[in-house]
């Protein structure tokens, strides 16, 4: 893992009583944004994502159907002009459920990654910057967590926390936590060798200040890129838990649990499982495409 870029101290005015602020150096965001904007796949991803977010926010305006209202007399209706994607086993409109379901799935993905970032990044930065015993202990724990894999770790945690939206979100977040610790540690290891960090040490800045002002600020770009790529993964994990029946509980229209419920009817209503699965796939795909694009534009060193 290399640092985002080499700082050019000569171009920076040295502030009175301190070292040049690392965050302001070298990057030319507009140039990198142009590289990102030229990436066709990333733009497709961004478009899909925008559609999902729009639909999730404005679901009540876009559909008049209640996603949880049961109507057994219209159960298992194939896609038609009235129900564009058909109805499920309890007569609920599948399109409405997918529209509202986006709220749960996307929120779970983003919050889970937020949890992983908030816990993983500080630990990773401390581990990489301080080294020594703290590094050894944090890395051994990370090794242990990594031997579980994100999905298995989340699955086991759900067994402890119990089923439901909140525990799934936390479990999915902890599932991807070790990756964030590793990434932040790698960033801290390379950034601490930079001249501006040495200068900060020489100026007598406290480790906590150096970590916040210099290390974190410079590690932020790769961390955000990685976070985008991981939202897709946490969505897959959370939907997988829903599919197994240990995630969001009925009648919540979460896509994974919709797929799990539809599984029993693949013989006579295969459309019921087609659309929630497609929604999960497209949402994950959009985050992966955007993440790939951000990575190529802002930090190619993260590539595979």
């Amino acid at each position: 893992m290399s640092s985002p870029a080499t700082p050019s101290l000569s171009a920076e005015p040295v502030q009175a009583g301190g070292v040049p602020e690392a965050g302001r150096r070298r990057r030319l965001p507009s140039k990198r944004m142009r590289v990102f904007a030229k990436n066709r796949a990333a733009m497709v991803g961004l478009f899909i994502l925008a559609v999902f977010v729009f639909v999730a926010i404005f679901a009540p305006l876009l559909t008049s159907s209640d996603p949880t209202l049961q109507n057994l007399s219209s159960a298992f209706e194939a896609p038609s002009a009235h129900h564009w994607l058909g109805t499920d086993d309890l007569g609920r409109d599948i399109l409405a459920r997918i529209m509202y379901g986006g709220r749960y799935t996307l929120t779970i993905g983003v919050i889970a990654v937020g949890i992983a970032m908030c816990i993983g990044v500080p630990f990773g930065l401390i581990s990489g910057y301080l080294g020594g015993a703290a590094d050894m202990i944090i890395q051994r724990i990370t090794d242990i967590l990594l031997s579980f894999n994100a999905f298995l770790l989340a699955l086991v945690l759900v067994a402890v926390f119990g089923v439901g939206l909140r525990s799934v979100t936390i479990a999915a977040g902890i599932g991807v936590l070790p990756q964030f610790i590793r990434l932040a540690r790698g960033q801290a290891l390379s950034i601490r060798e930079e001249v501006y960090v040495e200068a900060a040490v020489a100026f007598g800045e406290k480790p906590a200040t150096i970590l916040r002002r210099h290390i974190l600020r410079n590690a932020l770009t790769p961390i955000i890129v990685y976070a985008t790529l991981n939202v897709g993964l946490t969505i897959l994990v959370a939907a997988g838990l829903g599919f197994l029946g240990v995630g969001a509980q009925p009648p919540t229209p979460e896509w994974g649990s919709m797929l799990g419920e539809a599984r029993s009817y693949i013989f006579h209503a295969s459309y019921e499982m087609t659309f929630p699965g497609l929604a999960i796939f497209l949402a994950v795909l959009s985050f992966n495409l955007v993440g790939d694009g951000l990575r190529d534009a802002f930090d190619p060193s993260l590539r595979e």
Partner: protein
Amino acid sequence: MSGFVTYIMRRLIAALVTLLGVVAILVLLVQALPGDPARVIAGLQATPQQVTRIRHSMGLDQPVTTQFWRYLDHLLHGNLGTSARTGDPVWSDISQRLPYTIELAILGTVFGVVFGIALGVLAATHKGRWADAFGSMIGVAGISMPVYWLGILLIVLFSVQLKLLPIGGADSLSSLVLPTVTLGVFSMAVVSRMTRSTMLDTLDQEYVRSVRAKGVAEWVAVGHALRNAFIPILTVIGLQFGTLLGGAVLTETVFSWPGIGQLLVTSIQSRDFPVVQGIVLTFAAMFVVVNIITDLLYSVVDPRVRLYR
């Protein structure tokens, strides 16, 4: 040779430390159960006697450090405890089902590696052309595909519509096809992305260009490059093996495949913790062993790699 033995010993000790950590976490997790862990594990319908039996058999009436050493002691004697639901020894449940999971994991990995490398090489040797675009598309679609959805789609197409392959179970060779493909697609996508990027690097190296300059067939040059692209590919195979095991849990559930993944799901649903602990430990051991094997394969693939000094 002694350096090699030292290296192996060091890796095995590190693996043991990791597995001890996994055991510690598994023991601690039971303590984290809300309320009385023995009551939660025994289930709502359990009689006070059953709760007491579970509390005693899992050592929940003792301090957590005692529980940890007790679990280790039992583990060294080949005892993973007994199921809270059936009362059967956990190890006998696992050992009956483990071969199925290993079979599926190996087949899924082989499928992923073979097709992933083929796709990655195809993309790298046709950079910027349609084959590259196709390969990249399959790569990103493969890592975005929910394995459970892919499994059901394959069942609908090949079992329900075309009636070509069995819907699930493990009764015949043909029942292996759909689970293997379902499980292998993610590995295929990861391996193909890795193969493409490393092949693009190696194809540009001096030695490949000089081989080309000699006028050999293109596949000979590609072979030279591929051999050196193997190290990162091996690394990614080892690292994504954990994801493969997670995928196996879902794949086994979709196809009613009688492995330990399916048992893990039913045990989690019924909060049968002794079984959950046993299976998770087995998965962690498999992950650790596979990563040691891939490390050792580095020096086989590339003799320049010295794992030890």
